[in-house]
């Protein structure tokens, strides 16, 4: 019965030194805790819808689904279809606006 569950032994104490959280992780935590990440997401989503980026992505998905047969597509497929084009086709103004806000946040968070 003891061997019925394959599980790594629970670390009792911190035997291994904990890894330092990376700067990226710290920033992410601060963004989420302050609520700024949510606001930035909403802003970005709104701007991308306004400029038609979202419709472009949907059109790409639609044509891909048509080719592949609509019951054969997976979410992963679609993500891989959209990501390169999506990252490249964000309008410069939108990107600049978001980057500015992020920079302001980093400054205010004294990072």
């Amino acid at each position: 019965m003891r061997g019925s569950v394959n599980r790594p032994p629970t670390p009792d104490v911190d035997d291994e030194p904990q890894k330092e959280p990376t700067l990226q992780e710290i920033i992410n935590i601060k963004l989420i805790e302050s609520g700024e990440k949510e606001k930035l997401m909403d802003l970005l989503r709104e701007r991308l819808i306004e400029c038609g980026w979202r419709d472009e992505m949907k059109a790409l998905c639609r044509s891909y689904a048509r080719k592949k047969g609509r019951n054969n597509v997976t979410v992963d497929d679609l993500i891989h279809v959209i990501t390169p084009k999506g990252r490249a086709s964000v309008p410069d103004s939108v990107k600049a606006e978001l980057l500015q806000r992020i920079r302001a946040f980093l400054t205010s968070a004294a990072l």
Partner: protein
Amino acid sequence: MSASDDGSSSPRSQLCSQVFGDLLDSIIVDAASECHRIARLGLDRNLEEEEEELRLSAQARVADPSSSSDGNSKNMVDIFGQTHPAIASEIFDCMNCGRPIVAGRFAPHLEKCMGKGRKARQKTTRSTTMAQSRNSRGSPISVYAPYSTANSINRVPNGGSSASAEYKDYAFDEP
């Protein structure tokens, strides 16, 4: 960390770009997930899908042997796969005169039965007109429905001449 930004290569700018990329990835996943849902549920009017649906609906139309023109929805198959005849054939009793009536012929029957609409077969006698004038005064008693409506009907009782009596007696004179 430098206080001022050198350009796109400064660590702070890199950090900003990373954060931006993170946000963008989430939004891309959202969009892909929604498109996946639309594709799987067939919500999007795909060109091929439309042709398929047109073919299916044409089949449904052909399957019905008595199919007629496009506008006649009564002979076409409905969403449950049932067909209905053009004229309803169920028989029930008229609540006015009590006769068994075919449902498809109920409206014309009611016209004659209650005297509404075309005044065909209405014999206007003094009795009925006096009933009308009395009724217009708003008499609450209406034991026999045919004679208490504003419009008279064609079924005048044999004792119609007794209408000169009071309204209450008139009601009792009904056969």
